């Protein structure tokens, strides 16, 4: 590069570096992390605050000009069909019958589930947990991901995977793939390893704070290849926890955990239900859609490690995960899904 050109580029770089620092001082997120989806989500969350008063004002205007009025509609329980035929009337009527304003819950905006991101934990140089018989987590998660992907596709879902072979994909890259794929939910598949080899169970996580030091340790281990220190995320998390995404993630986690435990208990009577839990795994922090992390087994238990070697058991896990995802999707979007 010519000297003059270098100076010009340097001046521009300096301006951008200063702007980036000013954003830090003001507490703004990085420019690259301010995608349109966030604005849209923010708009969706705030929209009722604007739209509802507008509808109310419109309704009052209509009632004052002689068009059939809401007061009549509310007072007359004889016309429920006509009322519900018109969604605007229905929503207004329901508001008028409510004494106090309630916060709008996530269920007010049912989300269709069309595309699912599947994330097979670990890979490449990062084997994850290993059993005493040398079965590695990365191999099991990839196999289950592929089986689950096939089941989902067969049932009309689009599937995006963060890895389809044995390679190391950094956690931030997994989140980038998920966020760039316009997917509706994110399901990360992992296999546990705990210090008590006699115990084994299944558990499903969604993003949230935890005071459990064991969970903090687990999250730190799973977050190892992210490049972030766990403590670094705390302030960021405070903002994420308030997100409506958390409620959806919790519902998804509950549906998946229920199916995982009930589906696998039949073939493994000793399996324990460790429930739905909250923890700050990076893939859950950085993804922008409802996201869960399922620990589908326990490699530290020799008996279960042996079961996890078999294709039949892996297929059963994939089936259980599928039923969980399907149950969540059906609750939101029953008429549009083909069904199992």
């Amino acid at each position, binding site marked *: 590069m010519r000297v003059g050109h*270098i100076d010009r580029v340097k001046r521009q770089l300096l301006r951008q*570096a200063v702007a980036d620092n000013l954003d830090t*001082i003001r507490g703004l*997120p990085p420019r*690259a992390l301010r995608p349109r989806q966030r604005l849209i989500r923010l708009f969706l969350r705030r929209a009722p605050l604007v739209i509802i008063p507008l509808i109310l004002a419109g309704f009052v205007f209509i009632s004052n000009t002689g068009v059939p009025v809401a007061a009549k509609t509310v007072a007359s329980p004889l016309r429920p069909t006509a009322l519900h035929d018109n969604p605007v009337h229905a929503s207004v009527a329901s508001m008028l019958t409510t004494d106090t304003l309630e916060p709008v819950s996530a269920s007010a905006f049912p989300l269709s589930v069309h595309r699912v991101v599947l994330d097979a934990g670990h890979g490449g140089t990062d084997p994850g947990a290993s059993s005493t018989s040398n079965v590695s987590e990365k191999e099991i998660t990839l196999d289950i991901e592929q089986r689950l992907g096939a089941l989902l596709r067969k049932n009309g879902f689009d599937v995006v995977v963060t890895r389809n072979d044995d390679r190391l994909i950094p956690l931030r890259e997994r989140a980038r793939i998920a966020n760039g794929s316009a997917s509706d939910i994110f399901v990360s598949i992992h296999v546990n390893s705990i210090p008590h080899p006699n115990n084994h169970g299944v558990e499903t996580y969604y993003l949230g704070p935890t005071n459990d030091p064991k969970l903090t340790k687990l999250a730190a281990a799973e977050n190892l290849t*992210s490049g972030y220190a766990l403590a*670094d995320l705390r302030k960021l998390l405070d903002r994420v926890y308030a997100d409506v995404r958390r409620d959806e993630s919790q519902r998804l986690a509950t549906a998946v955990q229920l199916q995982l435990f009930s589906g696998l208990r039949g073939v493994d009577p000793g399996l324990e239900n460790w429930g739905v839990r909250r923890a700050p795994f990076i893939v859950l922090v950085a993804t922008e859609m409802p996201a869960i992390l399922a620990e589908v087994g326990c490699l530290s238990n020799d008996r279960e490690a042996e079961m996890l070697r078999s294709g039949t058991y892996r297929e059963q896990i994939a089936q259980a995960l599928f039923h969980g995802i399907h149950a969540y999707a059906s609750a939101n979007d029953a008429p549009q899904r083909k069904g199992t």
Partner: protein
Amino acid sequence: MSTESEILHVGIDLGTSRSAISASNGERFVVDSFVGWPADMVARKVLKRDVLIGHEAVTNRTMLDLHRPLERGLLKEGSDKDVEAVRELLKHLLRLVGVANGKVDSANVRAVVGVPAAALRTNKQYLRNSMKGIVDSLMIVSEPFAVAYGLNALLHTMIIDIGAGTTDFCVMKGRYPNEEDQRTLTIAGDSVDTQLLKLIEERYPQANVTVFMVREWKEKYSFVGEPQKRVIVTAPVKGVPTEFDITNEMKTACETLLSPTVETMLDLLSRVEPEFQERVRNNIILSGGGGLIRNLPRTLEEALKQVGGGKVTHMQDPVFVGSDGGLALALDAPDSDWEKLTA
């Protein structure tokens, strides 16, 4: 605001293992990123100091409550001691170049500090808070960006900075690098130390070896590929100095860096616009202590052959390349910008 003649500009490379400072008065220093406080009254009496920093802290670690304020290239948060350790380390670096030593007042210092490429905004804010009262104005930039700036490698270049806590990648495209242009791996010098210690302990369980010894051996003898000569080190066995051949262990530990480094390098290259990929492939700069691993540039060039070949250059003196870059940024930034960046 101070007059230009009184102002000291500094570039700081705040590293997990070592931290370097370059100042506009020509002073340059590097210290081990360790801070220690005497563990008890006896230690205080022996050491005759309230706080020890750098190599001194490592040498006297048995008498100290030793802290390493950075972890994976980021400031640790949580305990008051960690906060204090960061401040002590920064104050020490500034004292070395004359700040608060009667030569320069801390109110007249403008500092550029390099942090890992993937450092989150919250960690940068935390660093800003830690530097309050220590410098007048502060600019925080990604470490590989500071390296690139100092080397004028601003366009169609990839910087791979292998430090102790992180390996940072940055593709320079003539603009301030964003998330897409940068990557950070936590597989770096420290993970090599851990792996090497484990391998040595497995092979020579009788040897009494610490991570500090392993780190010194790695810095002297690290290599990938074929060894130039056997790596023979001395460690005590029941107090008796004994020689051990750790050639294979050194090779295995150092080569754990290869796969993730190559994978990330190729991935970032594949994201460069096709017409510029060849230029970036031929402008790869290896910096940081890991850049000194023997045969590493050649091995990375071998890996580049699968995408058409390329050239990897390593910095002969990687110690100050980041802090020098920071200093260059500090000197180039106009007063009007510094006034906005008050610490």
